[in-house]
């Protein structure tokens, strides 16, 4: 038997999750077309972390890469989940906002520039408190400014997931792509347990967490558009599809009444089952490619 026959496909594939934020962003672009903006050599560090005894990072955990995807202009903005939990601070927030605003400027002058947000983040960086909150507000407003002109694609690969304020940025983006390993939610499991007790949510129960926050469930419920395998090639192809796609006719974030009615219609007298919720809220309203 040939060697390729013995080795299963999942062993040979190039994992996307195993890449760091910079490599993830680079891997999405057409070969040789990208360059990094405000990279680590520019030393745009957080001025606030050292004051609190925390070592900063030269790029503040935010990587901005501009280039071409499927021949079309695009910018990828990646949060590095390994640095301070991918949290968003003053500098990383400003980089994200500036990159989105430049994409909007280009798109308005006829050069459609898609943005891809690679979100591995717990949300606001607590050490930068209000500045982080302001950054989230600015990012959301910049996403809203860009999305009528070019697609804003959120990619959550895992394993940090996307929580807190940045889950709102995911919520207003044109398309959301997730892997089975990724999680998306406003409040993370620990926060829910801390606020409402272990009866409400057991943050050590991984099956429960992924049944609620996991990529498969989020796509199944229609809160994300595509479920992709942890495979750099497949993720690149999916992102290319969305970069070239038409803009959604209606955004999830505009369908307030629709989602309010859905929540009102739920029978909370008995425990809601993730599977039945998925069947009831199938992915038909999102305008997703898949």
């Amino acid at each position, binding site marked *: 038997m040939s060697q390729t026959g013995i080795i299963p496909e999942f062993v040979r594939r190039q994992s996307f999750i195993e890449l760091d934020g910079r490599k993830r962003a680079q891997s999405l672009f057409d070969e040789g077309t990208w360059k990094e903006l405000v990279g680590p*050599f520019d030393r745009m560090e957080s001025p606030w972390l*050292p004051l609190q*005894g925390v*070592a900063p*990072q030269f790029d503040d955990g935010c990587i901005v890469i501009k280039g071409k995807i499927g021949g079309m202009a695009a910018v990828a903005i990646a949060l590095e989940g390994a*640095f*301070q939990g991918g949290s968003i601070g003053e500098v990383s927030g400003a980089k994200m906002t500036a990159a989105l605003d430049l994409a909007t400027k280009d798109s308005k002058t006829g050069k459609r520039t898609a943005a891809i947000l690679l979100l591995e983040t717990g949300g606001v960086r607590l050490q930068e408190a209000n500045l982080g909150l302001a950054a989230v507000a600015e990012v959301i407003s910049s996403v809203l400014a860009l999305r009528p002109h070019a697609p804003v694609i959120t990619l959550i690969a895992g394993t940090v997931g996307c929580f807190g304020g940045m889950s709102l940025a995911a919520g207003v983006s044109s398309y959301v792509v997730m892997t089975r390993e990724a999680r998306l939610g406003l409040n993370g499991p620990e926060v829910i347990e801390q606020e409402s007790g272990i009866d409400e949510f057991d943050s050590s129960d991984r099956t429960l967490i992924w049944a609620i926050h996991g990529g498969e469930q989020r796509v199944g419920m229609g809160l994300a558009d595509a479920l992709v395998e942890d495979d750099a090639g497949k993720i690149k192809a999916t992102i290319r599809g969305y970069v070239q796609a038409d803009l959604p006719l209606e955004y999830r974030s505009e369908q307030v009444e629709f989602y309010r009615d859905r929540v009102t219609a739920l029978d909370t007298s008995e425990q809601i089952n993730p599977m039945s919720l998925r069947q009831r809220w199938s992915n038909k309203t999102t305008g997703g490619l898949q």
Partner: protein
Amino acid sequence: MEQIEFDYPAAKRSITKRAHVGVVGSGDMEVLMEPTQSEGAHVSITTSVDGFQSTWKAVFDRFFSKFDGAVRVQINDAGATPGSVMLRLEQAVEVINQ
């Protein structure tokens, strides 16, 4: 948090490329290695773990016993062990020599 600086005046070989490797994650660090105009190599470290100046010195003494490039080395550290530090430095040298 601690700032540590070292000089290695004997490292004089001229370098043309620069390197950035690593991430400031728990037990890891990032390093910038760049050509310098001045004579010799200079190292500056920002570490979130205090009290390990002599350990850092030992690691860099060993590193510059084999490497003679005139480089500016800047490190942000989140508690990398001496072994990890050496691996990150060697990784940076690999990028510079590419």
